[in-house]
């Protein structure tokens, strides 16, 4: 079957030709950096959001045409990929409404006509929202999550709900109760997780951008595996209202896009204080768009003087050699762009992984107690109330969820609290201090997004510790509450046409701007790779 896959460029044969940006990415990557700063020659950032806006305003196309072409692509590719748990019946109607507004000369929101996938643990009013769990099968929430509400208000079209590891607990999307999503780069491999559906859908251009959630790397690791941009904001930047809670002190809603600009613009749309989430911040949300500077503007090195710390502990043995060299090449590339590189050490780095799993499982054991089969979700009838809870939860939760609830119940048991939960919280303090010190010396820190590229479906399914070890690059960032972006930086061998590797850039609290600025320059100047997955079989 794999031999029928085509090389990446042939994706441009598909119906979305007009909207995807392969051509422009390729030309940006292959052209030599201009030395002129003539404003007229400055090209706008590569962005499907901006392209959509331009083509709607110029009348080149309609929102309905765009929506139809994405829906048809979803129909064609879903049998192989299985990114979506639900495709909206209203997407076309929503698009027609936008066309009517254009016809009436009304103002358009910045996301008008943008086709957006939403992870299934983010509530969408009247549309199934199951967190890929049987216990919520067929559940339709009575409200939109704040992030979804903002997207809709700005004209975005929610095209469907994407597959994930049940309640976000997993790193491969294999722990979904309903289906296993394939990686568009190689259908025998996992897309990563837990936001695997959101990442794979953007990679396969089934939607322009998507929302995911990131508790310990669930946006960044699948972005790396699928060759797309994944943005995890600072804790508190985006309201968690309507995000089904897994580990409340770590959970954030994050963004996927095929370019840095798209991920940044989506983040801007969903950011800001929300009175329904007391942990959301009142910090101003800056206009990220001003960070998307074209390299054409610069006469000399565009990132001159930006201080970049390379985290030593993330490039040692145990990290795949291909990933290591891709990261080192990315570091050299940043240096060539003018960055000043230093090696930094985070002594607490390796402790983050067990601390994370103690904290996340403890909080999940508390958060998931709400799924009792009484007020919503699936109920298993019994003759006694406790039996009803036990059977509804026993039948409703999958293996990994049960494991983590039990793990958390154990860590929070009387007499164990100090040894596990409190101790993990103390380790979190150490981690935060280490990051803070490193970020006082540097503008950003870099590391791989995961120790390897995408692995085979089933490879780590029954070995929890092997699976957890894959989160080593990302969990510390959640423990410290910092923002981070992952963007493709190279390919390693594997699959029909190579497998993408992501570079993680970590910033100071609420400094997403710097990540977007550096990421955008990096993306424009990275040569040789277009990061479009190979053509899927039976689609041409």
């Amino acid at each position, binding site marked *: 079957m794999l031999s029928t896959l085509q090389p990446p460029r042939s994706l441009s044969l598909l119906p979305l030709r007009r909207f995807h940006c392969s051509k422009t990415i390729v030309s940006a990557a292959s052209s030599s950096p201009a030395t002129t700063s003539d404003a007229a020659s400055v090209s706008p950032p590569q962005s499907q959001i901006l392209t959509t806006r331009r083509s709607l305003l110029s009348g080149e196309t309609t929102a309905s045409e765009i929506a139809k072409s994405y829906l048809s692509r979803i129909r064609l590719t879903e049998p192989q990929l299985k990114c979506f748990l639900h495709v909206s019946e209203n997407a076309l109607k929503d698009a027609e409404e936008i066309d009517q507004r254009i016809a009436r000369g009304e103002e358009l929101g910045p996301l008008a006509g943008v086709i957006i996938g939403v992870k299934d643990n983010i509530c969408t009013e009247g549309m199934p929202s199951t967190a890929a769990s049987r216990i919520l099968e067929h559940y339709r929430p009575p409200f939109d999550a704040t992030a979804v509400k903002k997207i809709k208000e700005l004209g975005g079209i929610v095209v469907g709900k994407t597959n994930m590891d049940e309640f976000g607990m997993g790193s491969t999307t294999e722990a979904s109760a309903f289906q296993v999503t394939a990686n568009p780069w190689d259908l025998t491999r996992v897309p990563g997780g837990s936001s695997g559906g959101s990442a794979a859908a953007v990679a396969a251009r089934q939607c322009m951008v998507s929302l995911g959630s990131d508790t310990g790397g669930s946006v960044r690791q699948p972005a790396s595996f699928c060759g797309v941009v994944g943005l995890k904001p600072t804790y508190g930047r985006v309201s968690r209202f309507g995000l089904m809670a897994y580990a409340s002190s770590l959970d954030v809603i994050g963004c996927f896009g095929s370019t840095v600009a798209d991920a940044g613009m989506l983040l801007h749309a969903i950011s800001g204080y929300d009175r329904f989430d007391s942990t959301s911040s009142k910090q101003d949300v800056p206009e990220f768009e001003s960070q998307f500077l074209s390299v054409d503007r610069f006469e000399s090195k565009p990132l001159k003087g930006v201080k970049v710390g390379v985290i030593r502990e993330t490039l040692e043995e145990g990290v795949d050699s291909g990933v290591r060299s891709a990261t080192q090449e990315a570091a050299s590339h940043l240096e060539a762009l003018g960055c000043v590189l230093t090696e930094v050490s985070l002594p607490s780095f390796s402790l983050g992984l067990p601390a994370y799993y103690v904290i996340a499982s403890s909080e999940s054991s508390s958060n998931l107690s709400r799924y009792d089969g009484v007020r919503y979700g699936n109920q298993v009838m019994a003759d006694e109330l406790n039996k009803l809870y036990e059977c509804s939860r026993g039948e409703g939760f999958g293996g990994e969820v049960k*494991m983590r609830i039990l793990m958390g119940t154990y860590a929070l048991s009387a007499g164990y609290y*100090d040894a596990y939960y409190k101790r993990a919280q103390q380790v979190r303090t150490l981690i935060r201090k280490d990051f803070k010190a490193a970020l006082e010396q540097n503008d950003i820190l870099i590391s791989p997004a995961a120790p390897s590229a995408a692995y085979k479906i089933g490879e780590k399914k029954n070995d929890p510790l092997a699976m957890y070890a894959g989160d080593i690059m990302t969990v510390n960032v959640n423990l410290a509450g910092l923002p981070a972006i992952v963007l493709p930086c190279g390919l390693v061998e594997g699959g029909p046409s190579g497998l993408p590797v992501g570079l993680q850039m970590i910033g100071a609290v609420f400094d997403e701007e710097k990540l977007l600025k550096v990421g955008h320059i990096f993306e424009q100047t990275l040569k040789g790779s277009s990061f479009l997955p190979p053509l899927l079989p039976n689609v041409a």
Partner: protein
Amino acid sequence: MATRALLSVISASPRRIKIETSIFSSSSLSSSLQLQRYSRKAHRIARSFSSDTNPSVLQPPDVARLAETARISLTPAEIEECGTKLRQVTDWFGQLQQVDVNSVEPAIRAEMEGGNLREDAPETFENRESIRASIPSFDEAYLKVPKVLNKE
């Protein structure tokens, strides 16, 4: 079950070390030294520690009891499978005992600004019908559940 549990406590330390090496096979000389430093400190500290932070007295998980506490019914096969995995994971958690956290304040979450609570006042949710439609068993104004009192 009890015998196996006891054995697992006895073997906890060597196994933990083995798991650490497999997870942190990436440890270079410097981070191995780091770990050694931690364990030397842990040794020193362990002597003065109260019993609840000493890993040797932490009992391995009793899956059946935990499942009852968490209100999750498990089949015997699941109890068996969960038990093996849980023991593996909690052994691995054990390395946290070796960290010197004396006088380190626990952090319950990322740093946050305070004062973002909204007024504690009731509000009417408009979409009540939709909430009602999600309730699996509903009778007039009540959620219906089986009897609460135990037979005993």
